[in-house]
Structure formats: C-alpha cells, structure tokens
C-alpha cells in the first residue's frame, strides 16, 4: 500500500494541472461562445468543391 504515498500526491498534481488548464481556457475565451464552434466544423471549408463532388458522383455510377 506504500504506492498510495506516490499515487495520491500524483492525483493532486493532476488535478492542479487540470484546474490550471481550465483557467487558461477560460481566460482565453474558450467558454465565451458555446454555439458557433459547433458549426465551424461544417463551415470551415473555404472553397466548396463542386468539381470534386461531381467527380465522386460520376465514380459511383458504374
């Protein structure tokens, strides 16, 4: 059970790290807007590629 003397302080250190990371995220504005980023993943394609889409459709045909 001596391992506890290592594991428990390690847990405390990990929590401290998690809290630090969270503080950084809050300060960085990560929690300011919780709606937009969900769409960002869909939208961030700057150049829609109709060309590519058309190619894919053609491939499926045969």
């Amino acid at each position, binding site marked *: *059970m001596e391992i*506890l*003397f290592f594991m*428990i*302080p390690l*847990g*405390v250190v990990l*929590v401290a790290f*998690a*809290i630090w990371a*969270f*503080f950084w995220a*809050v*300060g960085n*504005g990560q*929690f*300011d*807007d*919780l*709606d*937009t980023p*969900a*769409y*960002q993943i*869909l*939208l961030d*394609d*700057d*150049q*829609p590629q*109709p060309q590519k889409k058309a190619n894919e459709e053609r491939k499926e045909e045969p």
Partner: protein
Amino acid sequence: MSEVSTCFHCGDPIPAGETRSVVIDGSPRPVCCAGCEAVASLIAGSGLENFYRYRTGPSARPQDPSDGPDEWDAFDRPRVQQSFVRELSGGQREAALLIENLSCAACAWLIDHCLRRLPGVAEVTVNPASGRALIRFDPAQVQVSTLMRNLARLGYRPHPVGAGQAESAAQRERHAALKRLVVAGFGMMQVMMFAVGLYFGAFTGIDEVYQELLRWVSWAMATPVLFYSAWPFYKGALRDLQARRVGMDVPVALGMTIAYLASCWQTLTRGHEVYFDSVTMFVFFLLVGRYVEMAARHKAAAATDVLTALIPPTARRVIDGAEERVAVEELEIGDVVAVRAGETVPADGRIVWGQSRFDESMLTGESLPQARGLGDTVVAGSLNVANPIQLRVEQTGQNTVLSTIGRLLDRAQAERPRLARVADWIAGRFVIGVLLIAAAVAAYWLPRSPEMALLTTVAVLVVSCPCALGLATPVALVAATSRLTREGLLTVRGDALENLAKVTHVVFDKTGTLTEGRIAVDEVRPLGALDADRCLRLAAALERHSEHPIAKAFTEIETDDRAEDVVVTAGAGLEGIIDGRRLRIGTAEFVAALSGAPLPAADQGGDSWIALGDERGVLALMRLADRVRPDTKAVLDELRGLGLHLEIASGDSHEAVSALAQRLGIRRFSARMTPADKLTRIRELQAAGAVVLMVGDGINDAPVLAGADVSAAMGSGTALAQTSAAMVLLGESLTPLVQGVRTARMTTRIIRENIGWALSYNATTIPLAAIGVLTPWMAAIGMSVSSLVVVINAMRLSRRRRTEVCPPAALPGAVSEVS
C-alpha cells in the same frame, strides 16, 4: 411548398414580375430585390455559399444597396471613434460593434469570412449570443467606415458599442464564476474520493498513517475550495454584517467555516472525524445554483443592448442651411437635425420645420404612423415615414427617453429571484442546524461510548442532505425554464415562474399582442365596375413602387399587373399607369381629384381607409387594419379553461376594441387607455386580490408590464417591452403562454414536493442516525438517493407530454384569410 415564390435570401415573397435570380450551388435561386441579389451574389461570388446551407432561418433583407456611402464616413472621425475603437499595441486598433440581425452561427461565420478578406483586418471575433463583434485591424490599411459599410452591405447593420464596458464587466463576472465553480467541482470530486477511503477505514480499520495521509490531502483540496470558490459567500456575509442585517450569506459562511475549522482541528489533533467532503459539496452545489442565476441575468441584460440599435448611428446636422453627416455621439442639445422620409429620428427633439408622420411602433406598439407638426416633440428611435423635417435636439444619447428607460431596466434586473433567495436561506439555516445536532450528538455519546460517538456523529453529518435542499429549487427552476425556452417562452426574471403559477387574471394589450401588429388589407369595398380581387391586384401593383409602411400591407398580395410611370405624391398617394389605364391610390381626396368624382363616404372609427381610382371615378375603398393572430382564439379558450379571467386593455378606439373583444368572446375590455390608465386598472385588480399577468408589446407598455405581478412581451414587439417584461414570447404566437401557465403551476408543485421530501427525509434519518441505528455507509447511500430523488422529480418538468403541445394550426396565409 412555397419555395418558388419566396426569396432565397430573405424569405420574403417575391413580387410578381420580379425575375432576378442568383446562381448558388449550381442552380439559379430567385431573389426578391436588388438588395438581396447583391448580397447573394456577393456571398456566392466569394465562395461562401456554405452560409445558406447552415443558417437557421432566412436572413435580413438588406437595405437598398444604392444607399449613400456617406452614412458610414462619419465614423472615420477620431472624436467619434473614441467611444468604440481601442488602440492596441503594435499600431493595431480594435473596434467593438453591436450587429443587427445576427441570429445564428452561420451569420457569425459569414461576417468573419467576409471581413477577413479585407486587407488590414487582423482578427474578427463574432459572438452570436451577445450580438457583438470585435474587429482588430490596421488603421493604415483599412478604415473603420469600410468595415462598417461592408457589414451593412451584407445586411448586418453595425452600431458602435460605447466602450463595451457593460460587456466586459459581464464577461469578467462569468469568467470568475466559471473558475470558482470548476475549482469547487474538482475539489469536491477529489475530497469525496478520499472520503470513501476514510469511511471504509472507519469500519474495516485503517492504518493511522493512511488515515493521516487521506486527511491531509483532503485538507489540501478543500482549502482552495473554501478560500477561493466560496469567496463570494464570505464577501456577501461581510457586507451583510456591515449593514447590520443577517442575509443568507451569513449562515452559509458560518456553517462552512465551522465545519472547515473543526475538520482542520481534527486533522491536526488526529481526532475522530473530518467533514471536508460535506464542506466542498455544499460549496459546489450552492455555486451551481448561483451560476445558473447569473447566466439568466446576463441573457436578459443582452436584450437591453438591442435598445441602442433603435437609434441610428449617424445624423444630418444642419448648419447655416448646409447638411453635414455626423455621428449621433457628436450631436449636442440645440443642434438642428434634418430627418428625411424613411430615416430614423436620432435624438429627442421638437420639430422646427416641416410636418410629417412618424412610425412609433417601436415605442408605442401602435402600428399606424402618427402625425406630428411644427412644435411637436418626436422621440429618438421613431421612423419618419412621410416628409422631410428638421428638428431641434432637446435630449441626446444617454438622456433620450429610450436610454433612460433602458437604464431603469438594467437596475431592476440586478435583483435575484425570490425563490432562490428562500432556498439559500433554508439551506443556510439547515447547515447550522445539522452542525448543532452533530455537536449535540457527539456531546451526548462521548461520555457514554466514544466508539458510538464517532459513528453517530459521522452518520448524522453524512445522512443529512443539504444538497437535496439546496438543489430542490434551482434544479426545478432550470428544468422548467429550459423547457419553456424550447417551446418559445423565454423567462427573463427569476420570479416569473413563481408568480405565473399564481395568476388569476390575464390582461392583454390589443395591437401587436392579440393582433399581428402590422397593417394588412382587412376589407375591400368595390365601388366601380371591377371586383374586389381585381382592385386588390391593381393596388398591389402600384404599391410595389412605394417604400411607405402602408405598402407593406400589399406585399403579400400576388399580382401580374405591372405599373409604369409611377409618381409618388408625399402624404397623398401614388399615381401610375397599368395597361394604359391611369390609376391613383391613396387618400380619398387625392384619388377623387383624378376623376373629379365626389368623395366616397367611408366609415370612420379609428380605421384607416385608402381609395383606388382611375380617371372615370373611384374604383374601391380598402380598409387597412391589424389582423388577429391565427392562434389567438384557441389560446384564449385554453387560458379560460385553466380558470383564468381574461381582459383587454388597449389604447385603441372603443369601436375597434369592442369589435375584437366580441369576436374573441372576452367580456371585460377597456379602450382608449393610456399607459397610466392601464396601470391603474391593474392596480385595481390587484387591490381586489387578483394576481395579474399582463401580456403586452411596446415601450408605452413598459410601466404596465413592470406593474403587473408577472408580464410577458411579444418577441416580435420592441426590445424594450421584452426587457421590462418578466417573460418574452419568442415567436409570433401566443400559444407558449398556455404551456407557460401549466409548467409554472407544475414547477411550484414540484419545488414544494422537493423541499417537503428533503425536509421529511432529513427529519426521519437524522434522529435515526443520532441514536445509532443508521451506520455511516447506509447514511451515504441514503444521502445520494435523496439527492437523486430531487433531481429526477425536477426532470419531470422537462419531459414533454404530447397532448399538451398544440402548435398553431395554420400559417397566416395571404388574401384568402382576409375577412
């Protein structure tokens, strides 16, 4: 269904004969006007078509693209920029803008991408939740006016945000609260974990050294929770004590401190028991409740900001007969300002030249424009619909009627909901009570059996469940509010649900509440050879050429006719040629003058009639009126079914109100009511013991909404009515109101059940624990189950029962529904 006939961009119906279209995603899409065409091509041309794929609703119809570019130039003056542009290091600047029509994430994305394409724009942050954008740019490469002009061109009109102080204060508060919450959460989880070890140790035996370790680690985790996360409670307690009163923070702070210090003492002296777990959990649950409240408060405050959007960003100052564009911030009392037809009045003032009619629907909720002449006062935010005027500024910026009301509202919103205060109060007393009982139990058992003293004290502390008490109210409130928001009723004030449950009388405003609040053709009376339908189509073809608010009454009417050579006579009407026939539409005098025919007789009584005629005589009279919302009748019936008394209080004429009341089956109504009259009526009802729900729309309803026990405003109405109201109906429908009353009643019942449950649970288990029947592990299970019961019970509120949902049956159609 109607995809062909609505504009791809803004969703408005496409006028007949309009052939514009824009190619998007490879196929042509119809658009309704030059403005929409310009925006849609701009979006498509920049490869941003994705916007259309992911937006949540139709976009705003942009203003006429030919709108003079000089409107935004005023923002390049350094004096104007002082208020909203910040100097950053490295020569960059940051502009804070409030953006109109910013409704969804796709809008934010579109703005972001369009602005970033401009040279010199470094970073764009758009927050759709608060409707704000922060733009970092290099002033050497790009002008502020260019940024704003580009936004306006997309259909999102920007407004400078005065220093953005309010926003950053709210943001700081939210950040601090989040950090405190998370520290408490992590601390609670860790301490609980160690507590499990300690409890196990209490039965099965634990080496002294491990117990020591666990206790010290618990102490290490609990200390930041107490001194960082719980800091607001200490601050509150200190403030209360300085003011020599005992608020809810005092017992909370006291309870936490005693439990913490006792645990520290026990740790140091290797005593019996530590209570770090109870302390951290208590702090965490209280903070969750506070955080939810704060979020609701901020949401309400964001609505107030929209008020500033009513005032235009720039004005035309007249100096020695010459007009000059200045920003509204530069206006001073005594300046003379020109307001052209179609522009919004920038400041409160008195008309010194000209006369016109003003659309004050933003302020009063009355949809028909009001005539104002020389010497009359006009209010900032109202729209000049007829003729150019000049006015002498009497109040500017912070002192306008609009801003003053806005500030009053801000103050009113700072208060906390009463139910939450009561819950805190109960929880605070409860903690002290439990600590006293635990001390008494320990004191009783210690001389008799130290072994039992330990077990019973622990059991008492564990089994007592402040979480169930602390959670009882907030969980139910949150579940109910979020459910209602989903259904279209936004709760702005915390007290709203509690009061709504007790409501006995409902008082409705008429215009914009029971009715749609915009003018439509209500009746056509043909006088000549043509039938009503034909007359309507001719009228609609003519009105397509007008920007006048009355023309909006005709936009829904489809017509194949095309009018040519249309001439607008301000204050009278329109003249044009359709199929070679010269027609006039407008006031009876104006129309009759074309043919020299005698004036047609029209009924009076608050309604507004317009005439259509040609060179041979008057063809038809048309009555413009406000249509009743399609779901009004059903909602009123349901409310009556819930046992509520209904009443109308309107500023409109007696005839109009009584006709509507009769049609809707409401027996009590009062017409020609000023806001003060309405307030008096509500006071009367309240004096007779009634609890009044006021449903209204418009700024002149603001005092009435505030005076009622609980109030709801139509979301389609003015921003101000929304903020002074306790609740806001988000859509164009009254239906959520019914659900609101039902849910509110259920919420108070559930809160009562929860508190009852928590109290009776504690009342039975604490004595059992005190006499040693309950062992700590049973107590731990009991406590968790007790919390779960409370949460699950509250969750019943967010469950939707199908039978309760009754969406408005039909969409408001076009002419066919005109009665």
